[in-house]
Every structure is written in structure tokens, then in C-alpha cells.
């Protein structure tokens, strides 16, 4: 499926008010990569994809950061599970999520870490009244490329949102459980149920049923929109904001229906539809990973986020002999026994990443594999859970990005290099030119 600027522009114009972001004007003709190798396997026939995976509470950094830089880097304990895909992996050391720091807002490093991870924005400390963060990189991509695929983006998680109270020192739970932000004020809830995620990707019922249902839905949506348009006059500004969410959601669905009618039909994959949320955490994560692979393979979406566990999660991991809560352990106070357990959890998560990467790499596509045509970012906006520091973050970037990346290296960046610079560079590789995202200061060099 070819990328065409014109259709994208047209599409965005159609989105109206919610899409009127200044950077769209900057979208020029598509890509001439200065640093793209001439013998790149990338062809424009194969689309590039991006996924962002988050793990909470930081890492044992000594067991994460390779000693050697460049090609042929070593794999410390936490990275060991990734040995099979090492040549398709970049370890990026030295990046910083400055906006996760307090900046006068006091405690709440966990909530801020997840909120700032993809946004480069400093979330507003509130227990709910006026949630405010920034748009996240995946949503920038989703909004720019929506017209080309069925689903602009897919938001997944393997731990449901917290059920009580504020989650971290006065920050609403939405910050510590949400990675994707459609706008500064609209967090996008993650889907934790594989069954529903699957249905969202591939629908239920056959193609004819879906088309009929879509048509029926349009008539419902047409009616409710017309019927409600005069409500605004008699609502306060705050109510109007809520009603706007409603109208935006309706518009989104109408667009999805329009796209479904225009795009070639997707074949339901040869994969058993998941039944629900597995009781086993590892199985749950892997099922979600499978869905990312299936979605990319069928080109249903090209953008996905996946929160493996909420930031500050106090989940115990008894199946790897860690019965204490993850968050409690992360405040290890330098104690060896606790650090070992933290490392076990870190390794467990790496194994899940390895599962995803190996799976992507096993799917042949054009001249390479699905992994060659993807950019998978993995990491945390907390470095050491004990210190709550947000510099020198554990970040991996896997995949070839359609030949725009040069994986198989450990790259060290200057201290305080904004993490958001990586997001800018990834967007550029999706042919999305954007001047700034959150606290970014430009693109990230030495990626490809």
C-alpha cells in the first residue's frame, strides 16, 4: 500500500477541529533520507510500523547497560534473553525524560514517568479535576496516517487501571496507567482484554455482516449527532468539553467506517480468537504480543502501544519466585537480595520482549521480515526505581525501520539528551515531519 501525501492531507482536512495541529503544515514531500544507505532493502511498497512497550519501576541498570559500545556489544543479564535478535537491536544509553522530574510538583515520579514517556510533557498534578499532559508520539503518528489503515492506532495493556484512590502522591491514576494521549486532555484507555482487542482489529462476524452493521451504525450516529447539536447552547464550558469528546468519538467511528468501505478487505488471520483475559500473566502478555504481530502483518494498524504493567505497579511475580510487590522491591535500598529479585522481574520482561521480536522476525515480508519493517521501542522512564531518577533511561530500539535504522549496536548519548528526540526520529522514519514533541530539541543522531 503506497503512502500518498495527497490522500493524507485530504484525510486530515476532513478531520476538522480536533486535528488542527500546527505541525501538519510542515509536512512536506515525503522523505529523502540523508543517512539512508543506498543499498537499503526498504522499498516504499512495504510500510514502516512503530510500537512502544513500557515496563514500570525502572531497571537494575548495572545489569542492563552494556560495557561495550557500537557493534558487537555485550549483553548483560537483563538483555541476555534478547541474544537471538541482538543484531536487530539498538541499546540507547543516556536518554532522559526530564519532564518526569518534579519541577516543583513534589512526589509522584511513577505517575509522571509513564505520563511523560511518550509525550515529553510534564503532567499536571491533579487528583482528577483538570487532567493535563501532552499528545503522545503514537497519537501524532496515528493522526497523521490514519487514512491509510483501518485503525489509526492500537493501545494495549496487561494490567487494568488501578481501582482506587489517587495512584501516586496526588496524581490521578490515569497518569500511571495510560501511555497514549490523544491530546493534552484526552488519555486513551488501554485495552487489557485480548478478546476485545482482537475484535477491534479483525471484527467479529463475516465481511457482509460487518458492512451491514457499519451501515446501520451510520444511521444511528447521524441521528444522535443531529439530535444533540443544539445542546451546546445550554451547557457550561466544562460540559461542552465533555460533549466534544462525544462528538469526536462519533466522528472517529464514522471515519473508521468510511475507511473500511474504501480499503481492501482484511482477511481474518489464521489465529484462534482469544477468549478473554488469561489468568497467567506471561500468557496474557504473549497474547497481546501476538495481536501486535497480527495487526502489523495484516496492516490493520501501523502504530501500537503496550503497557506491560502500570507505572508503580506493585504486582508480585510469584511464578518467578518473587512474592513481594514489584514497587516495594524497587525501593531496594541497595540491598542485594531485593536487587536480585528486581533483576528477575527485569529479565522476565525482557523474555517477553524477545518473544515479540522473534515473532516479528519470523514473519517474512518483501525482502526481509516484519521486524525489519518495524521500529519497536521498549523501556521505562524510571531508571533506578530506588532513586526515582529519570536520566540514563533503559531504552531499546529494535527493528530495521524499513532500512532507516542500523541496528545491532549500543549507542551512548550525551547526558540529558531528551528521550523525545528519539520519538521525533521515529516519526521522521514514518514520513511524518514534525518540528517538536514535548521537550524534544531535534532528532536523535546515529540511529541509522
Amino acid at each position, binding site marked *: 500500500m503506497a503512502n500518498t501525501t495527497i490522500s493524507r492531507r485530504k484525510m486530515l482536512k476532513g478531520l476538522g477541529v480536533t486535528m488542527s495541529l500546527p505541525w501538519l503544515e510542515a509536512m512536506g514531500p515525503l522523505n529523502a533520507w540523508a543517512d539512508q544507505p543506498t543499498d537499503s532493502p526498504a522499498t516504499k511498497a512495504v510500510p514502516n510500523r512503530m510500537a512502544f512497550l513500557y515496563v514500570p519501576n525502572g531497571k537494575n541498570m548495572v545489569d542492563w547497560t552494556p560495557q561495550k559500545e557500537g557493534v558487537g556489544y555485550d549483553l548483560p543479564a537483563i538483555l541476555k534473553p534478547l541474544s537471538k535478535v541482538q543484531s536487530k537491536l539498538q541499546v540507547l544509553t543516556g536518554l532522559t525524560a526530564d519532564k518526569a522530574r518534579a519541577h516543583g510538583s513534589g512526589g509522584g515520579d511513577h505517575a509522571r514517568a509513564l505520563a511523560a514517556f511518550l509525550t515529553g510533557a510534564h503532567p499536571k498534578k491533579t487528583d482528577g479535576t483538570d487532567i493535563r499532559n501532552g499528545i503522545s508520539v503514537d497519537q501524532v503518528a496515528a493522526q497523521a496516517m490514519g487514512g491509510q489503515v483501518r485503525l489509526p492506532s492500537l493501545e494495549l495493556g496487561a494490567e487494568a487501571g488501578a481501582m482506587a*484512590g489517587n495512584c501516586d502522591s496526588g496524581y490521578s491514576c490515569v497518569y500511571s496507567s495510560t501511555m497514549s494521549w490523544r491530546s493534552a486532555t484526552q488519555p486513551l484507555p488501554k485495552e487489557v482484554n485480548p478478546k476485545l482487542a482482537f475484535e477491534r482489529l479483525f471484527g467479529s462476524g463475516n465481511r457482509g455482516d460487518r458492512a451491514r452493521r457499519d451501515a446501520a451504525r451510520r444511521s444511528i450516529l447521524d441521528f444522535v449527532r443531529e439530535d444533540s447539536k443544539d445542546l451546546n447552547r445550554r451547557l457550561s464550558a466544562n460540559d461542552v468539553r465533555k460533549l466534544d469528546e462525544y462528538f469526536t468519538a462519533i466522528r472517529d467511528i464514522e471515519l473508521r467506517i468510511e475507511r473500511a468501505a474504501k480499503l481492501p478487505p482484511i482477511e481474518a488471520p489464521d489465529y484462534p480468537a482469544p477468549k478473554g483475559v488469561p489468568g497467567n500473566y506471561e500468557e496474557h502478555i504473549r497474547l497481546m504480543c501476538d495481536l501486535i504481530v497480527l495487526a502489523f502483518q495484516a496492516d490493520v494498524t501501523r502504530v501500537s502501544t503496550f503497557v506491560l504493567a502500570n507505572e508503580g505497579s506493585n504486582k508480585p511475580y510469584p511464578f518467578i519466585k518473587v512474592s513481594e510487590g514489584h514497587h516495594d522491591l524497587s525501593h531496594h535500598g541497595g540491598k542485594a537480595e531485593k536487587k536480585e529479585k528486581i533483576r528477575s522481574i527485569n529479565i522476565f520482561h525482557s523474555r517477553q520482549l524477545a518473544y515479540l521480536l522473534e515473532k516479528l522476525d519470523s514473519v517474512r515480508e518483501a525482502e526481509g521480515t516484519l521486524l525489519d519493517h518495524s521500529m519497536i521501542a521498549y523501556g521505562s522512564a524510571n531508571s533506578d526505581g530506588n532513586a526515582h531518577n529519570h536520566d540514563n533511561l533503559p531504552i531499546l530500539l529494535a527493528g530495521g525501520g524499513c532500512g532507516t535504522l542500523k541496528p545491532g549496536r549500543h549507542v551512548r548519548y550525551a547526558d540529558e539528551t531528551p528521550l523525545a528526540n528519539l520519538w521525533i526520529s521515529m516519526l521522521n522514519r514514518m514520513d511524518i515531519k514534525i518540528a517538536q514533541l514535548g521537550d524534544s530539541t531535534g532528532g536523535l543522531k546515529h540511529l541509522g
Partner: protein
Amino acid sequence: MNRLDGWGMMGTLAFGFALGQSAWAAGPDFSRGGAAFLKKHCVECHSGENPKAELSLEGFTDSASVVKGRKTFEKVLRMLALGEMPPKKKPRPTVGEVGAFTEQVKAVWDFADRHAKPDPGRVTMRRLNRVEYRNTVRDLLGVDFDPTESFPSDDIGHGFDNIGEVLTLSPVLMERYLDAAETISKRVIVVTPPKPAVRYLAGIYLQPGGSTTKDPFRRMDQASEDAKVAGPFTGPGGYFKLTDDAELFFRATLYAETTSQEPVRVALYLQGGGVSKGSSAAELAKVFGGDSPRMKGAKILKTFEISAREAKAPQIIEVKISRVAAANAGIALVKPPSGKPHAVLRIRHLSTEGPLETRPQSHRMLLGAQTGTPPAAQQREIITRLLRRGYRRTPTPAEIDRVVAFAAAQMQAGLKWEAAMQKVVQVVLCSPKFLFRVELDDRPTAPEPRAIDPFHLASRLSYFLWSSMPDDTLLDLAAQGQLTARLDAQVDRMLADARAGELIRNFMQQWLQIQRLRTVAPDTKRFPAFNEPLRQAMLRETELFCETIMKEDRSLLELIDADFTFLNAPLAKHYGISKTGGEQPRPLKFKGAEFQRVLLTDRKRGGLLTQASVLTVTSNPTRTSPVKRGRWVLEQILGSPPPPPPPDVPELEENGETVTADTLRRRMEIHRKNPSCANCHAKMDPIGFALENYDAIGGYRTQDAGQDIDASGEFADGTKFAGPEDLKTIISQRKGLFVRCLSEKMLTFAIGRGLSYRDRPAVEGIAKALEAGDYKFSVLVKQIVKSEPFGRRRGIQTKNTNED
């Protein structure tokens, strides 16, 4: 009132400072103490033409100025608390001096707020959360649709999942609303009703007795002396699905053999408990002749002439049975004219078809209309009723017109009427008027406080107490303008209704944060007693306990200390209360998961603080956390939460030792010597230590890892305690703090927004009424629904009300 500080959130309405200078005579005096601190430590830099950080602290010399400069002082307090001001190079005030200054500023605000003019604020319109959606669909349409699996979880703000500002509507959720509306509409209205069920009872099974013949036709010959042959024959009404709320056909398939020229007549009849009025003795005698004991109490439905004479072509007779749950349905020969011979009946089977109505109850309820009016009027009646209940107010004629036209267009496009009405249900369920609790306002920007519309009041009441839509009584009272006048009676009625259980489940569980019980995972190696039945039992104990406080209208203070609770076998074992005899009304005998009310004989249990639910959710998976328990009591019970820990401070230093209660306590005592921690931990930790007799899943213990538990200690103010019993006593004595905290929490839940200092007068009013009203549960609820923020509102002038 720590918790209300800095929560200003209701826009920038010019909120006049209501206290005149003279009113301060009785209040705290900033000019003594606070002003001097400011002058000594702050004003030097924060003054003049170019004050540092563009913050001038000049002119704040009396209490009134501190109230006017509230936002400025919030910043000042924050910088002081973080230790960022005064700067390091300047002389530092002592921890005590900072504390005194902070206390005085807060006391000034507190005083001003309590004496301020009431301000109802304004609630942002609330989307129905998952629980409310489910209940509303049930009460509106009569079906139970559980959205927990398909709808994303609702975001939580201010501790609750019904806060308007926080409940967002994502495209994914809207898709799920569409899905749900389709599913629900198809369940409540059926386009093609399924065929009624048919049940046959073969002749061989008819009563009395059974037949030995292999002939499929059972013989009935009244000339015979043998009852098995002679009949009359019946079949059980239960098998035939006879019921007093449905109609069905009762049939017999048979032929007759006779030597006589007389017509053969039979009767179908009912007999037994469900027959309210049988046929008269005279009538029975006329049909069956003389005294016929076997037919006593029977109700003859109909008599038939049987003309079929051979098995090849049997005759089917039928009668409609309307709403009777008889014990038996039967067939009998009618006595032939005197002197004529009896015929012999051969019966293949008795059967029923029905209930004839196979459409769900909801279908009839929704689509029923007055008979005898023209179809267009009926359609309008049906739609008006649905919109009134769905939108929870009187719909406008234009709204009705639009839906009527929509239904007509659907039918024009080829849908049957029922299918078009399914679509109507769908548009209602997908309308913002249904999905949101819209409180329309002709003057959304007018700043004067005024009463909300009676329909809005009806919804606020029903969603507060039932987490569901208002019922017809509430809507009718609202329409008549009578609701405000009858609030007390309505609250009493609503609390007595079964739906009020939702208040317990939704408010209490969130207030106490015990929904987390569903996901906690205590280390089962350390706590082998923890299993699924115990988890369920913990939650249920608290629910039953709170429900009893509500149902029996008991004192809220019993939430802290009570002499009763509810136990089942797993929980009784967990608490070690298996055979407490003595004062029990009857000896205890626990039967599995079944709960019973138990009178407690000591104070180790009784009240929320000592319930396993609360003790478990405030623990770590492997051990107790005195800090978490202390913080929980301060936040949820006393309403004075400690500020969050300063950034970059690791929680606890440990040096390779096993964590036991004793070492924990020693470590935390060291912790409290660190001045940056001490201030708050001095408040939290003692409370937690008083609860150390309860392990991480709430089991009672006197030892931990071989060492005796020491549950004694001393609060920051010097109050000493020896264990959990003392803690309950101490908190009970501070009942003013507790009821204010509970009032704030419940008010937040009731109005669906976070409270601000402007709500202080309302909270004070509720607390005072509770004091005068024996702290009864119903007083709390009634005071809330009569409070300024619940029943009134004002407009907001600014566009962007996020920035306060």
C-alpha cells in the same frame, strides 16, 4: 483541613471575601505570629519593584490579606514544606517555626471558609460509569447487561469513579456503546417472536395409573369399574407449563367408539390448587351426572362433541387457558342421556402449546400503548414514554418529533415496526442525553447560585442512592414540582429500597478502597490461609456491616467501634471466633460461606479498622505496612492526609536483615529521627503500630517471627495507646474529624466533583447536623441531599475553567 487546601477548581468566579474586618475578632490573628515570620524570612527578597520570582509578599499583615492572597500563600506553604525556601544561604527557620506558620495560615483559611457565604459550585456533566450504565439499562429496559468486560474501566478522581471531569469518552468506548445498544435492543424487543413451545403427554402417562396396551391410544371407558380404564384422565399442570401469568392452548387428540347413535361428548377441565373458583355442583352434576367425587372442585373449560371414530383420523379439540396455574389438566366423558350406553374414548395424548406470548416482558412493557387510539398516537405515546425515562426528564415536542420521524424513516426503508423500534432503543442508548447526566441550563454563565431543575434533582438523588435512573415516582414528583418539598420522605423511601445496596457497594467500597481486595495477591507461602473464599468473605463482611448501619439507621460512629459483625465459616476461622458463646443470642454454628450476625465479646474486632478487608488492602504482599495503615486512617477516616513524601527519598533503608515486626519498628524509629521524614511519620506510624496485632491478611497475632508484638505507642500529641482497642477509643473521641471526613467523601461521591474550600460551609453544616442527630446514617444522607452543592448550582463565566 489539609485536604481542601489548594483544590480550588470551580473557575474564576469573583468569589467575594465575605468576612468583614470585625468578624475576625473571634478568628486566628495572622498579625500576631505569621506576619512576623513572613517579615523575618521572606519579605526581604520578595518585595519592592522587582521581587524575587515575581512574587511579592509585602502587605500580607493580617488574616484578611492571607485569605485574599490564598493562591500566593499556597505557593509559599509548598516551598516551605519542600524546604526549598528560604534559600540555603539565608538563616533557616526551625522545623517548629515552619510548622507553626503553616498551621496558622491554614487556621486562617479554615476560619474564613467556615464563615463564608455558601457557594454551590458547578458540576461538570457526568457520563454514566459502568455500574450506572448497567443499572440504568436494567431499570429502563428490564434487562441485565453487564458491561464490565467490554467497557474500558472508568477513571477515578478524588477517590471515586463517578467524577464528571474525569470520566472521559474515548472512541473505543463509543464503539462499545454502539455494540451494547445493538445487543440490548435485540434482547428487549423481538422482531419475529419464536414459536410457542408444545408439550405432549402420551396417553400411556395419563393419570390415573398407566396403560398396559401397546396401542398408542389410551382407552377410556366409563362403563368399566377399573379406574385405570375408566378415567377421567389428567396430566400434571407443571409439566404442561400452566401458569397464572400466561395463556396457552390445552388440547387432546382422540377418537371415540360407540354403539349408540347419541353424540359423544367430552369435557376439558382443570382441577387443583391453581383453580380459584371451580364449576358449581349443579353444573358438574349436569355434565358428569349425580355426585361425582373424582370431579370435585373441577373447573369445566369447555365441552366438545367427538365425531372421530377411528385411529387413522383422530380429532383434536382445544381450549385456551388463561392465567391459571392448576394442579392438573384433564379430560372426562360427559354423561350420556339417561339410559343410553357410555362411549369408549381412545386418547392419543393431552398437550399444551404455550405460553403463547413468547416476546420478553420488556418488549410488552416498552411497546405497550393505550388501546383504541390511532396508531400514530400510540407510536407517539410509546416514544414519549421511552424518551422521558431514557433522558430522565420531559422530552420536548421537537425531540419526540425527531424520533417519531426516525422510526418512520426506518420503516420506510423496509424495516418491520419492531425492528424500527429496536433502532429507536439504540438511538436512545447512544444519545448523549442518555449517556451523560446532562443538566441543561438556560443561563450557563450566570453567576448567581440557584436551585437545580427538579428533574436534575431526581437524577442526582437516584444516582447518589441507587447508582441508577430515577423511578417513575421521582420523575412524577419532579414533573409536579413536588420533589424538593418531599425530600426527606423520598430519601427514606429510597434507602429502604433494595437498590440502595448500591450506595454501600459503590460508595463504601471506594471510600474504604477495598475494591483492591479483588486484585491483592498476598504471599500464600507466608499466609497460607489466604484463598478465594476468604477474599470473598472479607469483602462481604464489610459490605454486610456497612449495610446494617444503613438499614438499621445506626450511628456512624459504629463504623469505628461496634460490638457486632458478620462472619461465615472461613472468616470465623480466620478471626478465631469459632465458638464464642456467652452473650450470643444463640450458639454460633457456621455453615460454609453463609454469613451470620455475630455479637463480639471483646474489642479485638468490631468496626472497620479491625476488619480483614481493610487490614489486607493496607498491607504489602509479604508483610504489614504500618505506614500504609497509618496513612489510610489519616486519609480515609480522619481526613487529614499526610503530604506526599518529598521527591528522591527512598522508602526504607535495610541492611540485609529479615523484616520482622520488631525490626520494622526499630527501622521506622530510626526513620523518624530524620527530620525531613519525622513530621509526617510521627503522625502515620503510631497508628500503624497500634494495628500490628493484625498480620498482612488481617489475622490476629501476638508474635511475629518469634518476637512479641508491641502494639503500644504514643501519638505526636502525647496521647498514649496500648493496642488496637485504644486506637478505636482515641478515634471515636475525635469523632468530629471522622464525621467531617466521611461527609466530605460522601458529598464528593454524591455530587461527582472534587470539593474545594468553597464547600467548607456545606461540610460544616452536615457535620453540625450529625452531631445533633446522634450521628445517624440517614441524617448524613438527608443533610447531603439538602446541602448547597447538591441541590443548587451557579454558572461559570470563564471559557477555560481548568486554570484556577
